């Protein structure tokens, strides 16, 4: 029950500890650190100020001391003056000169007394006269009862004045008469004989010290002290306090006296205990000169006054600094919060959310050009990338799952046996078809070495191949388009023929193999049968081909013979013809006179016969050549053939006044020469068999299915449909030779040409209204031959 809160506290503490080390604290520390120099500067300035102040004070006190000394000198001077005057006064002279001193002494005393009363302000403690033997003749102040007071012969000043006969300054000492510390001045009084008979003295009290303080307007708390050379305080300001006469030898002042420096400064506690800075100066002339030296005036200013200003300034500055620091800290706190921690917290929160799985978490911090902005941008980008990656990953997973499903379905349902093996040749996966094929139960093939399902004779080669591939040799039979014809081994030892396609892939640095096995038992059997049948067929084909070849050769031979025959025949037939015709004509010429008209007619017939014979022979020759002398089939542009035909027929066309027109004609496969012959015959006929009107011939071509139906139409005499078939027979004529010349072979040649081209030819006509000859040519696509064979 207690544990809970304790734990919470512990957590809180560590939390705070954590926070202490946090950014905020560091920021504030930085800010404060920045203010450090300001602080140092302040301190330094303060110290400097103090130093300067002290120096000033030192200078001041020194000046004051000097001033004091100068004042003292002045007083001494004026005292001197006074003494000189006094020494001339008759009362004084008289007082010493006469032994009867009393009256004169009294006069002196009154005189002195009056003077003193008036001189109070000047600080004379006493004015008196001392006889040469040291007896005090007169004194403004009543002599004290002590016997020693009546004789001041041992006093230094007295002695000095007496002996030197000049003005003398004594030491600071406590006057016997006055009982106060004073400085005595003495001046000798001379008688007429210029002998020193007495000394007039002046005791200056040290009240001028006090006056000094007032004149100079020392700051409050200042002290002025006069010390004799023993360190006894002779006078002091502020007065009172009862320290006059006290020895200050054991204080810091004692040091002054001891050291006997003419002037300087010394710091230490004053008589009132206040730390002060004292400037001191020796008074009364040179120390050690006649013993009157060694008296010091000290002017002290309290340290606190000195440093007061500096301290004030310091505290003011420190206060200001503290205020600034506070403001800075506050600004840092707030600013940090606004500019940094806010964003940091946001980013931390976003990071936590992201870690928790929310990939849509974003910092919400603006992507400015600052460090935090950049950090936020980077974070957001990273989150975005993670999100995308995750989406991608999900997609990939999806694709992978789908691919896996696809593979599974193909794999499992395939009727071909598929096996996957690792690089050691062990089956890692197989489908049902393979289990069925090799006669293993479900799962029994997994882990089996492949050698188990192959005949003994393959096993060594298989292992060797696996080794080779494992050692880095690239596999040769794998993934090739061809499959291997092998034998497989079913469980139970039954071999069967199979076809194997091999594949392979890498994964994680390891190699895997896939194999598709097709049982080719049936195929093999069918192949065997096919082979037998093929063999039989081949034999038959060979026999038939031999026959066909033989026949073709015979045909060729007979064709050749025929051609030769035709050639020779035409030659040999031509000559006797010519002879007959020529000589008959020669006869006519030579014996014209001796022949009658009949003879001429007879000769005409004979010659005509011979000519016709020649024509027939040529036509027959041409006819025979249509089939045998044809060129190889090539692409024939009918338009080109037509135009060359027309130029051949120019004479006939001009003579007949004929006009030949045509439609666009196609390019067809065929023999250009023979097609030219065809067109020439048809168009020649169209012109020849004209009627009264000038012949109009039109050549057209129309595509019907996979052939062209071409036509040559004329407006001539036409053909009686009864004879439409006969005209294509050889030597058939429908008209008298006298009316229309020609042997009657033209159309037969056309028909033979058409047969050679795989087409047909026919005529449509009405007697007296012209005829249209149609012929068909295949429209097969024939690429133009690269070069026609030479004829």
């Amino acid at each position, binding site marked *: 029950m207690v544990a809970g809160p304790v734990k919470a506290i512990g957590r809180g503490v560590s939390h705070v500890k954590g926070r202490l080390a946090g950014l905020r604290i560091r920021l504030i520390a930085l800010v404060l650190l920045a203010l450090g120099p300001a602080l140092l500067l302040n301190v330094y300035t303060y110290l400097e100020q103090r130093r300067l102040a002290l120096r000033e004070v030192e200078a001041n006190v020194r000046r004051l001391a000097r001033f004091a000394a100068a004042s003292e000198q002045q007083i001494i001077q004026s005292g001197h003056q006074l003494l000189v005057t006094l020494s001339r006064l008759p009362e004084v002279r008289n007082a010493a000169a006469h032994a009867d001193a009393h009256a004169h002494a009294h006069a002196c005393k009154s005189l002195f007394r009056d003077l003193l009363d008036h001189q109070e302000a000047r600080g004379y403690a006493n004015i008196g006269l001392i006889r040469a033997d040291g007896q005090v003749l007169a004194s403004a102040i009543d002599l004290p009862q002590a016997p020693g007071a009546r004789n001041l012969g041992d006093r230094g000043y007295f002695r000095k004045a007496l002996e030197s006969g000049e003005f003398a300054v004594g030491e600071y000492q406590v006057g016997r008469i006055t009982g106060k510390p004073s400085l005595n001045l003495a001046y000798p009084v001379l008688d007429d004989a210029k002998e020193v008979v007495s000394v007039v003295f002046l005791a200056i009290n040290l009240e001028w010290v006090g006056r000094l303080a007032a004149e100079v307007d020392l700051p409050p708390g200042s002290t002025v002290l006069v010390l004799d050379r023993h360190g006894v305080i002779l006078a002091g300001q502020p007065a009172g306090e009862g320290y006059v006469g006290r020895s200050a030898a054991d204080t810091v002042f004692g040091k002054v006296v001891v050291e006997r420096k003419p002037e300087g400064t010394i710091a230490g506690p004053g008589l009132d205990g206040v730390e002060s800075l004292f400037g001191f100066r020796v008074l009364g002339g040179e120390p050690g000169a006649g013993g009157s030296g060694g008296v010091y005036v000290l002017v002290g200013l309290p340290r606190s006054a000195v440093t007061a200003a500096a301290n004030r300034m310091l505290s003011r500055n420190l206060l200001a600094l503290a205020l600034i620091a506070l403001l800075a800290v506050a600004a840092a706190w707030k600013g940090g919060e606004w500019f940094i921690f806010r964003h940091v917290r946001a980013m931390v929160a976003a990071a936590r959310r992201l870690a928790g799985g929310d990939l849509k978490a974003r910092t919400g911090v603006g992507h400015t050009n600052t460090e935090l902005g950049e950090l936020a941008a980077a974070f957001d980008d990273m989150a975005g990338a993670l999100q995308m990656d995750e989406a991608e990953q999900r997609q990939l997973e999806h694709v992978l799952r789908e691919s896996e499903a696809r593979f599974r379905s193909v794999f499992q349902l395939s009727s071909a046996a598929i096996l996957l093996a690792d690089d050691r040749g062990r089956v890692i996966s197989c489908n049902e078809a393979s289990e069925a094929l090799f006669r293993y139960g479900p799962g029994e093939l997994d882990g089996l070495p492949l050698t188990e399902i192959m005949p003994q004779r393959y096993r060594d080669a298989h292992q060797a191949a696996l080794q080779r591939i494992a050692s880095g040799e690239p596999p040769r039979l794998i993934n090739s388009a061809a499959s291997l014809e092998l034998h497989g081994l079913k469980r139970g030892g039954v071999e069967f023929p199979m076809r194997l396609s091999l594949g392979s892939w890498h994964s994680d640095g390891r190699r895997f193999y896939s194999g598709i096995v097709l049982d080719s038992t049936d195929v093999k059997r069918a192949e065997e049968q096919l082979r037998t049948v093929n063999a039989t067929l081949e034999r038959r084909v060979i026999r038939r081909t031999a026959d066909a070849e033989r026949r073709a050769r015979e045909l060729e031979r007979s064709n050749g013979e025929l051609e030769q025959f035709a*050639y020779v025949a*035409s*030659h040999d037939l*031509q*000559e006797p*013809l*010519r*002879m007959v*015709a*020529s*000589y*008959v*004509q*020669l006869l*006519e*010429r030579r014996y014209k006179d001796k022949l009658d008209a009949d003879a001429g007619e007879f000769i005409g017939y004979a*010659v005509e016969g*011979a*000519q016709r014979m*020649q024509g027939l022979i*040529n036509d027959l*020759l041409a006819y025979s050549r249509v089939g045998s002398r044809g060129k190889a089939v090539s692409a024939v542009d009918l338009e080109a053939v037509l135009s060359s035909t027309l130029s051949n027929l120019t004479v006939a066309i001009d003579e007949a006044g004929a006009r030949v027109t045509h439609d666009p004609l196609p390019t067809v496969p065929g023999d250009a020469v023979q097609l030219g012959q065809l067109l020439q015959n048809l168009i020649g006929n169209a012109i020849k068999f004209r009627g009264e009107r000038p012949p109009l011939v039109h050549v057209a071509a129309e595509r019907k299915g996979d052939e062209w139906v071409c036509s040559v139409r004329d407006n001539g005499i036409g053909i009686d449909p009864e004879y439409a078939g006969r005209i294509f027979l050889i030597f058939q004529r429908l008209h008298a030779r006298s009316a229309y010349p020609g042997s009657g072979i033209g159309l037969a040649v056309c028909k033979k040409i058409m047969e050679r081209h795989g087409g047909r030819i026919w005529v449509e006509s009405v007697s007296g209204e012209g005829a249209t000859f149609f012929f068909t040519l295949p429209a097969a696509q024939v690429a133009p031959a690269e070069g026609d064979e030479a004829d």
Partner: protein
Amino acid sequence: MDTTRSATTVNGKPGILLVEDNPADVRLTVEALRDANAHSRMDIVRDGVEAMAFIRGVGKYAGSPRPDVILLDLNLPRKDGRAVLREMKADPDLRCIPVVVLTSSEADEDVCAAYQLCANCYISKPVKLEKFLIVIQSIEHFWLHVAKLPQGGGRA
């Protein structure tokens, strides 16, 4: 080469060599030239072997003048016209004698072959007499009176 054989003209007349085996055709040709009153001689040989001997002026034809132009039939016994043509045109000494192939054949292949063998021209004998006479006369006129033949038998 017999360099002593002079230029063609004997008695100022140019000479034609007719190589023809058909006597009927020979007679016709002779008649044709006679009709035309041609100023030329004609020598006749009956086959290709004789023809080469005559042209070369060897054997029994030694001393015979070189013909200016030769009318050559293609179908001859022993050596036929094509062989004669080939032989003549292969011989640098003989190839400059113009050869007119005069034959009854109109066949394209004969025409082509003759020109391939560098016959100077190819004439196919017309059937009609009139035409025949004109052709023969034209040949004689053209080759012996129109065309310029090489001097000195064309020897280089």
